[in-house]
């Protein structure tokens, strides 16, 4: 069951569907490890561009052309910085929320693409824990699949740490709700 400390910790978070008496019990986010490949790629790209921009031997004798190439290089660095910040925001805001009434899956992808799935705890049929992939194996990440009854959408909590506890928490919450 959720600890009172967890409930206190997430007290300030309010999502737009929330009822007055509804409490946020847990906020889950994909592990940052999964995002590392594009972070490294961006660091390499920015480093290469900065090296090109600062290397005088690459740039021709023409001062106009040299200034122009430098401008293009630093503009590209700025573009990559904005693009990476957007990807970071995608990761940061894509969360799974477990509240006292429901499960929510906020998924933000590229610019303007969002997917918000809500599932009432009373509709939960089964909770499955999956460990897939090499990174998941190394870093102990897992995917929790929540299957729901009828036409309700299923929810996947992908690449999260501590999958066992989450599975246990969701099962307990669903059992309690169905008892009432």
């Amino acid at each position, binding site marked *: 069951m959720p600890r009172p400390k967890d409930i206190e910790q997430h007290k*300030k*978070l309010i999502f737009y569907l929330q009822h007055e008496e509804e409490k946020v019990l847990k906020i889950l986010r994909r592990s940052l490890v999964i995002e590392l490949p594009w972070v490294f790629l961006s660091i390499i790209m920015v480093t290469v561009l900065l090296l090109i921009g600062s290397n005088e031997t690459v740039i021709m004798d023409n001062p*106009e*052309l040299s200034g122009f190439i430098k401008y293009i290089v630093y503009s590209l660095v700025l573009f990559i910085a*904005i693009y990476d910040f957007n990807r970071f925001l995608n990761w940061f*805001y894509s969360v799974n929320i477990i509240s006292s009434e429901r499960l929510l899956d*906020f998924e933000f992808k590229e*610019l303007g693409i*969002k997917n918000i799935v809500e599932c009432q705890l009373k509709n939960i049929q089964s909770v499955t824990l999956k460990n897939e992939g090499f990174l998941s194996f190394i870093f102990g990440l897992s995917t929790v699949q929540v299957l729901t009854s009828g036409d309700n959408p299923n929810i996947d909590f992908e690449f999260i740490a501590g999958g066992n506890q989450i599975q246990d928490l969701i099962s307990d919450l669903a059992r309690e709700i169905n008892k009432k």
Partner: protein
Amino acid sequence: MIDLSFLTLDFLFKIFKVVISLVNIIFFALVFRNLIDRQASYNSIMYVPFLVIMGCLGLFSVLFLLSALI
């Protein structure tokens, strides 16, 4: 005959620079709009730091445009 003497290499570079900086500013505006949209879904306490970072990126975008124009 149309006088195309203004089409110097310097002028073309300037036009290209302005176009590139405008692309950066438009992209920045879209990302900023996206941030506001996300914050509307649930209130994150990191919103203010994110706004500060966005402000810095926006400032750089505008500075790039100004340097292209001058």
